[in-house]
């Protein structure tokens, strides 16, 4: 009998047979009886004597079955017995995962079941089961639609909704995804979905490296053609247009969820060729309260690609059981809006910014405040005229200069959210970032627009320069900046400016620690950053500023400064020459120079070519800021010789908090003198509005201590300040991991760096948290042993890494010698002995490499994770390859 419901065969991997049961349900209206196979941990929980807080109702998609949810059933049940998870705080949930009728091991009813029937079927089942109390739906694929449809019809029961890759709406402009289009061709439909397992197999192929037994388990209910009829019916039920019988039902769901004012979570595999990011964006627009996490690298069968169950349970605990955190009280002081100077000086003929090498021109371009204010206003109006709405995301792929400045301030003024990803991510990383942010509009230079076309970046396209009509058409460009300004010259008033709490920008991290993350900032936070920079570095209206470091330089107009972009290839900081800095400084009589650490090396290397007037100009500079990575004192000392009147600052910060502490060259020297063997890099004292605390590491290397400012305690550096990020974009887990709320209501950002404070309140960085070595003798932070090893003669740079399991790791030093070695090797007995003596802690081995691997962006942050993996392999008897 292939048509009647049955229990799954025994021995399917990961599926506990005690959860399987059959439920017979009368169909409302017809009275027909249908038997469902469901997975249900209710009895298991009852046996453990635990009353669940509610029910998670899971609905699979096509062509899977309840097997998809097996890990959630196990995780939800194991919470009870797992002492570590403290089920009082996680919450115990009953999980019911159904096999939809005609699917899995449920009845083959002999009738096709369009969407409206399937939603009603699920209602019949939950009524039979007598579901009460709080129910959270959880759907995948078309099961997402069915479960959300059920939720819209049972709002009194629903206290939350969750979904894995799904969609509730087919945007009018989007073609049906190719795979489905293929499956929907009438001749192919039957053969691919029913007569053969082609559709099944291609769906399973969407999960990377599914083990054969798991693949077989997914196929288990669909071994014969008659058992696969439901798969074909399901595909045929996808409403391709409004004439389809399920179109009305789908529309009811997609509009109905707008009224579901309950917590929502979407867990997403971006590598899904069917339900791409556009459907996530659509869902987030319908349910703006929703949380989302995109798992980079995961695909359509996200349930197989990532361990989603703990994430779901954690989210339920935080969002559904605890409820949202109380709103953070509005600050008493509100920094001025970023564009306020453009309003204030809109009639000023004074220079706002200078571009030393503007694109397509041979001479520097000077832009007055009046011109800049006019251009920003025109652009803002033009963008509005072209449909850019407040809250729309605008990906800006324009190099620093006048165009970028005008575009940014225009977007900010109309409340559009600026998405900025650095070309330094490489085209692959950049594309992941842009697609992940899913912009509504893209403003780019030619090269960016070509990439956008080739890589399928979404959104309306605007070009920086006017393109020939044919080129514009082929790249899908709607208008150029010039055309936008023309369109904006209507004199129509601009809309209301955004509120301080509205989202202003999504800035992508450098990607030096995993895939680039989008960091979301509100207007209030960016204004606070601008205000902090002004206070910290005494920047006032008219201060001349050489803008060699983009993130701060873009705040020039907000600061009221006169900023100048030097002649350089901004995507490659090491193209900045000393002469270019001097010429830029001369153009605005600069008092301050911003430079990236990578640029300073080339500035020093090209200093010999400076003319006397150029040297004189540099002598007038009063401050230099080099942000992005710590720099060694000798390098800074040489910079100081080039800029003899300047105070050399190296602020400490990250994309999530661009300025946390500051130290001057003098401060670095004082710190080194007062604490010679500190085991860290001194990054100075907290900036004006910043609080720095330390969360002490426990014996397992976990930052578990409450944030404290006690000196001498090593732990994770946490920071609070008005200009720290609002959240990570569509990365709920990352965001939840990144914050520590203390009892007094302060929200701390976890930097992922480890260090300590000294008795004078200075912060010393000792490395990255994931690089901490947990030996049997205790926790070792890498910077201390590295500094000591670097004192040994002949050693250029050292990296301290851990080999072996945490808790009994061995300390290994990897050395780059001053005289470059051609291939990696073990250190000589003499060098090994010297390094052991210098480090003063047990060192298992010393390895020498030609060059320590550094992350490409900073060329100064040693990639210790990669070195640790390499050393582990070598010291296990592997080949002595290059790291």
């Amino acid at each position, binding site marked *: 009998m292939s048509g009647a419901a049955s229990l799954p065969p025994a021995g399917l991997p990961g599926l506990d047979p005690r959860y399987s049961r059959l439920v017979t349900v009368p169909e409302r209206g017809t009275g027909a009886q249908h038997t469902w196979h469901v997975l249900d941990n209710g009895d298991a929980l009852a046996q453990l004597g635990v009353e669940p807080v509610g029910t998670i109702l899971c609905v699979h998609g096509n062509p899977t079955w309840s097997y998809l949810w097996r890990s959630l059933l196990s995780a939800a049940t194991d919470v009870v017995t797992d002492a570590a998870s403290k089920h009082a705080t996680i919450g115990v949930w009953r999980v019911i995962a159904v096999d939809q009728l005609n699917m899995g091991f449920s009845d083959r009813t002999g009738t096709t079941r369009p969407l409206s029937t399937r939603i009603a079927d699920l209602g019949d089942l939950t009524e039979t089961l007598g579901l009460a109390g709080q129910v959270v739906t959880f759907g995948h694929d078309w099961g997402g639609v069915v479960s959300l449809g059920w939720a819209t019809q049972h709002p009194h029961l629903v206290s939350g909704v969750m979904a894995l890759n799904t969609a509730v709406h087919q945007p009018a402009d989007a073609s049906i995804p190719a795979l489905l289009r293929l499956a929907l061709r009438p001749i192919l439909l039957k053969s691919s979905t029913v007569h053969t397992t082609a559709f099944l197999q291609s769906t399973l192929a969407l999960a990377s490296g599914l083990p054969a037994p798991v693949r077989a388990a997914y196929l288990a209910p669909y071994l014969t053609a008659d058992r696969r009829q439901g798969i074909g019916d399901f595909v045929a039920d996808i409403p391709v247009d409004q004439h389809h019988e399920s179109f009305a039902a789908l529309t009811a769901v997609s509009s109905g969820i707008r009224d579901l004012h309950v917590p929502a979570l979407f867990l997403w595999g971006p590598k899904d060729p069917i339900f791409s990011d556009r459907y996530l964006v659509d869902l987030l627009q319908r349910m703006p309260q929703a949380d989302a996490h995109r798992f980079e690298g995961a695909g359509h069968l996200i349930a197989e690609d990532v361990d989603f169950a703990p994430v779901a349970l954690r989210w339920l605990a935080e969002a559904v059981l605890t409820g949202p955190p109380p709103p953070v009280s509005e600050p008493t002081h509100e920094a001025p809006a970023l564009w306020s100077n453009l309003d204030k000086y809109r009639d000023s003929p004074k220079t706002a910014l200078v571009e030393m090498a503007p694109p397509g021109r041979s001479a520097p371009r000077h832009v007055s405040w009046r011109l800049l204010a006019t251009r920003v206003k025109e652009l803002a109006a033009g963008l509005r005229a072209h449909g850019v709405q407040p809250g729309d995301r605008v990906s800006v792929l324009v190099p620093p200069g006048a165009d970028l400045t005008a575009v940014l301030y225009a977007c900010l003024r109309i409340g559009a959210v600026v998405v900025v990803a650095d070309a330094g991510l490489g085209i692959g990383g950049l594309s992941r970032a842009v697609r992940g942010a899913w912009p509504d509009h893209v403003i780019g230079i030619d090269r960016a627009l070509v990439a956008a076309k080739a890589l399928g970046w979404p959104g309306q396209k605007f070009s920086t320069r006017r393109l020939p009509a044919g080129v514009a058409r082929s790249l899908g460009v709607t208008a150029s900046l010039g055309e936008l300004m023309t369109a904006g010259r209507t004199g129509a008033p601009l809309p209301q400016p955004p509120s301080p709490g509205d989202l202003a920008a999504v800035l992508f991290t450098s990607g030096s620690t995993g895939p680039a993350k989008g960091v979301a900032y509100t207007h209030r936070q960016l204004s606070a950053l601008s205000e902090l920079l002004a206070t910290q570095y005494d920047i006032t209206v008219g201060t001349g500023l050489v803008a060699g470091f983009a993130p701060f330089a873009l705040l020039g107009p907000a600061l009221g400064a006169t900023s100048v972009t030097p002649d350089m290839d901004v995507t490659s900081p090491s193209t900045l020459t000393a002469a270019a800095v001097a010429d830029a400084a001369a153009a605005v009589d600069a008092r301050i120079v911003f430079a990236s650490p990578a640029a300073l090396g080339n500035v020093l290397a090209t200093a010999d070519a400076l003319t006397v007037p150029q040297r004189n100009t540099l002598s007038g500079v009063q401050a230099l800021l080099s942000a992005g990575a710590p720099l060694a004192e000798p390098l800074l000392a040489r910079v100081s010789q080039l800029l003899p009147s300047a105070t050399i600052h190296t602020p400490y910060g990250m994309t999530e908090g661009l300025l946390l502490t500051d130290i001057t060259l003098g401060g670095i020297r004082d710190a080194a003198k007062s604490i010679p063997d500190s085991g860290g890099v001194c990054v100075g004292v907290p900036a004006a509005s910043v609080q720095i605390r330390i969360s002490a590491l426990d014996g397992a290397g976990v930052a578990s201590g409450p944030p404290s400012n006690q000196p001498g305690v090593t732990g994770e550096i946490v920071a609070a300040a008005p200009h720290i990020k609002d959240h990570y974009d569509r990365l709920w887990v990352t965001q939840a991991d990144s914050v520590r709320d203390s009892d007094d209501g302060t929200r701390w950002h976890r930097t992922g760096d480890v260090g300590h404070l000294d008795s004078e309140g200075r912060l010393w960085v000792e490395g990255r948290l994931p690089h901490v070595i947990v030996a*049997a003798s205790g926790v070792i932070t890498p910077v201390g042993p590295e500094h000591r090893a670097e004192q040994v003669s002949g050693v250029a740079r050292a990296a301290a890494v851990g*080999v*072996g*399991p945490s*808790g*009994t*790791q*061995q300390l290994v030093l990897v050395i780059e010698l001053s005289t470059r070695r051609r291939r990696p*090797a*073990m250190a000589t*007995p003499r060098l*090994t002995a010297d390094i052991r003596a210098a480090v003063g802690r*047990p060192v*298992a*081995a010393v*390895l020498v490499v030609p060059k320590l691997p550094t992350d490409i962006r900073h060329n100064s942050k040693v990639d210790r994770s990669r070195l640790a993996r390499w050393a*582990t392999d*070598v*010291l*296990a*008897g*592997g*080949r*002595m390859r290059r790291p």
Partner: protein
Amino acid sequence: MTMSETPMKVLVTGASGSLGQAVVAGLIAAGHEVRTLQRRSSAVAGAEDFIGTVTDAEDLTTATAGREAVVHLAAKVSMAGALAEFEAVNVGGTAGILAAARAAGVTRFVQVSSPSVAHSGTSIMGAGTLPADPKRARGAYARTKAQGELLALASDTSDFRVVAVRPHLVWGPGDTQLIARIVERARRGRLPLLNSGACLIDTTYRDNAASAIVAALHRADTAHGHAYVVSNGEPRTVAELMDGICRAAGVTPPRWRVPAAVARAAGGAVEALWSMRPGEDEPPMTRFLAEQLSTAHWFDQRRTREALQWSPAVSIDEGLHRLAASYR
């Protein structure tokens, strides 16, 4: 720590070796009354030597008479040889001494074992003490020692408290096993380093192994029923160890390098030849030795140190100084 222990009447088997002598000396220093059982004199002042073998039931009955504790070191330690010989001593001898000890009313029994009883040939990096596995252990020595350890631990009761101690690669001055072989081969230019010689290996300085065995006897009441890997807890690369030992002995450290896979294959062939023509020396490279020298094996010592309330007193560097002094 040792001063506070109640003096006991202890039998030490296999006391004529380098480690056995150190154990006997340690026990005497701790105030115990020590009898030894081996085929020749233990040559330790203050010990009562009984000449015999662990394969002779009569010898065992006589030797264990009146004893309160036994430290069982006697074993056939070799890298080549007939399986039957290993079985007779390492399995049969252990079963015999266990039976005799229980019959004599002994309450504490320390089985001196080897980490190779749980070593299947793959790298061990920071693992704890894994169960002995006679099936997967490599070579006749390790397999029979695994059986012996299982026998000993299976005899553990609250009245007959058995602790198994597995010192890893014991070395020290006067050692005829590891050190003498390494030095002799290096002197003849027959000691290759495998691959880069970079795999990390734990070793145990002889006096530390001895103090750990004494500690196991003292802690038997709380530590019994389990095995504990013992080492210096200072993993070093093979190359560095060989270099240090050769320098201490005044011979040239090894230079030439053989890929580990070649050495393992060659080791297998030599081993096969050797077992057909047993001779005066060991084969230059057995498969077991090739594995030992081309894979990492170092251990998590936290549980051992806590359970035995012991830590090594002699560092590797200090041990090498003492070794060098012994060659001068």
